[in-house]
């Protein structure tokens, strides 16, 4: 078993490109996705047609009192240009008795800002009312181009857990990719005939499979570990020190992936077809499983149901529990158990399929 295991590493070191590429892509992707989604503070450009500069500044100071949001004075023309060029997705127009948002495109960040502006505005209005006791004009809320309010109750949750989910999601996605790709080797060994050499040798089949599997398993583990280490140093995500539960989640995830890999190569037994099938399977699994965006923004029931069947979803969920809530192994038992179950299930079918194929393989 160790001989087979060692050999696979020897072969991997001769051709490390696939794994290195996927590792590199992980780092790139996380930075890219993280860059878009977790831009710490979105600047809301603000202008006014009616107010004087001093009045506008006064408003902006009030709006900026809460430091989750940043408001900045600007003028209509430059804002219009920015929106047109897609550099800014929205802006705020303040007037004496009303405000309105100019919206170029929908943005997840918009609704909390609307809420915030609304709060500040009505507060000021009430103060003004008390001072003047004059209920003349109500404020109006209008949209300029199109305004769709995206409101969800757990908005704050999402933005908090998001970086970890992305980090885990993308890392898991590319490690699944690596594992699947390396598993093409198994099929190639069957084609090349080296598999046959192993079968008619004194080595038992169990040992051959174990040696191979262990290799894929470890490649996955090393890749995930490396990408977590590199990424947590590179971007501002704290994975914490909850190592044991984290390792258990990662190992269960890899087990599920190796098993699904067996299942895939059991069905599709030509390397050329696998080259096509693997990216499709890996990518759709990751997309449905929420590796690239939080499942909270999905509201299609079928997609949500499918997500449950994706190991990556449970992997991410486990990671989020471990990192965000500091869960112990028993607290993330559900995702771990789900992953292990998937592993056993697909491994069983996969091995059976593989053996059915080799019933027919002669010299």
């Amino acid at each position, binding site marked *: 078993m160790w001989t087979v295991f060692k050999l696979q590493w*020897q072969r991997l070191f001769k051709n490390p490109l696939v794994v290195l590429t996927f590792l590199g892509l992980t780092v790139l992707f996380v930075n890219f996705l993280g860059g878009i989604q977790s831009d710490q503070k979105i600047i809301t450009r603000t202008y006014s047609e009616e107010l004087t500069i001093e009045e506008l500044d006064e408003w902006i100071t009030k709006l900026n009192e809460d430091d989750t949001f940043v408001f900045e004075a600007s003028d209509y023309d430059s804002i219009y240009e920015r929106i047109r060029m897609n550099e800014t997705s929205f802006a705020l127009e303040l007037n004496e008795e009303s405000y309105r948002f100019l919206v170029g495109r929908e943005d997840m960040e918009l609704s909390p800002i609307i809420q915030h502006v609304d709060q500040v505005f009505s507060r000021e209005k009430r103060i003004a009312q008390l001072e003047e006791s004059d209920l003349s004009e109500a404020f109006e809320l209008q949209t300029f181009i199109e305004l769709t309010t995206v409101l969800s109750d757990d908005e704050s949750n999402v933005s908090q857990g998001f970086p970890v989910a992305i980090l885990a999601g993308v890392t898991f996605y590319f490690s699944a990719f690596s594992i699947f790709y390396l598993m093409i080797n198994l099929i190639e060994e069957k084609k090349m005939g*080296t598999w046959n050499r192993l079968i008619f040798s004194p080595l038992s089949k169990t040992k051959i499979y174990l040696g191979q599997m262990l290799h894929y398993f470890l490649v996955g583990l090393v890749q995930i570990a490396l990408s977590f280490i590199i990424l947590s140093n590179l971007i501002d995500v704290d994975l914490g020190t909850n190592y044991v539960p984290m390792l258990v989640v990662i190992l269960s995830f890899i087990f599920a992936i190796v098993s699904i890999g067996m299942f895939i190569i059991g069905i599709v037994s030509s390397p050329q077809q696998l080259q096509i099938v693997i990216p499709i399977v890996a990518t759709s699994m990751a997309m449905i499983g929420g590796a690239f965006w939080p499942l909270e923004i999905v509201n299609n029931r079928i997609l949500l149901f499918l997500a449950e069947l994706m190991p990556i979803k449970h992997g991410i969920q486990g990671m989020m529990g471990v990192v965000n809530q500091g869960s112990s192994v028993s607290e993330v038992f559900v995702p771990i158990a789900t992953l292990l179950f998937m592993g056993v299930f697909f491994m069983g079918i996969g091995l059976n399929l593989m053996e059915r194929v080799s*019933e027919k393989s002669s010299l």
Partner: protein
Amino acid sequence: MLETRELTKKFKEHVAVHNVSLYLNEGESVGLLGPNGAGKSTTISMMSTLLPPTSGEVHFKGKDALKNPQGLRQVLGVVPQEIALYEELSAYENMKFFGRIYGLKGEKLEKRIEDVLELIGLTERKKDAVETYSGGMKRRINIGVTLLHEPEVLIMDEPTVGIDPQSRNYILEMIRKLNREKNMTILYTSHYMEEVEKLCDRVYIMDHGEIIASGTNQELKDILSSDETIRIDVESLSSEFLERLSEHPVVQKVMQEEQGYKVIATKGDDLLGDVFDMAKSAHTKITGIVVQTPTLEDVFLHLTGRKLRD
């Protein structure tokens, strides 16, 4: 020593091997001869415990080798028809791996690798990746990897396919040495008659999944003892001449060749005289005529009406 009993293999409805019984005695060199698709590879896959037969048994030293394959696997060497190596690795690395699989290690393994590299003449290239080798060199290392654990039984599936005559002679010489000097029991599969005639003590001839004849070279040729083979060269081929030849009462088989015809006929009758008459009336000019002693090729032709290689 190694024996099969009525081995049969079906792939779905297609019967690839049907009731094949053959045996190898210790130290014997046996040929398995047959055209493409005869079922040779399938037969030896079953003999080497790789492919489970649909029915039948394989016995090694009196024990059922399918139920209990370990004994056989430990001392068996199989050379696959295709190059079965990790081509991105060097000859040395391949040998190290396959040696270890058979439990060799340390100095003993190094020594064996050295000896085998010497034997197959690849000592100088041992550090190069196999994918950079020539076809003949790949064939040699493909065999070499199988010899590391000094197998008692060596099964070779067309080990000389597609290589130049020089490499081929080298390999044949090597196999002969292993058989003579190490008393290795050898099953040699081929569709090259000359190889089998030169190398093997005994021959099985297979066609369409069945063994159609077996025996020593001489015994097989004796099948044709009452026949003779006549080669007739002509200036240009003529279908009329061919037809007349085929219809002649003592002629059994006629094969058309590049410059003429090969005729297998019953000995004794005066066929030659008739041949010239037939040629004349078919307006065909004979440029040469030879009466040959039969080869295994002729035996196959006689048994099946077809040539071994199409």
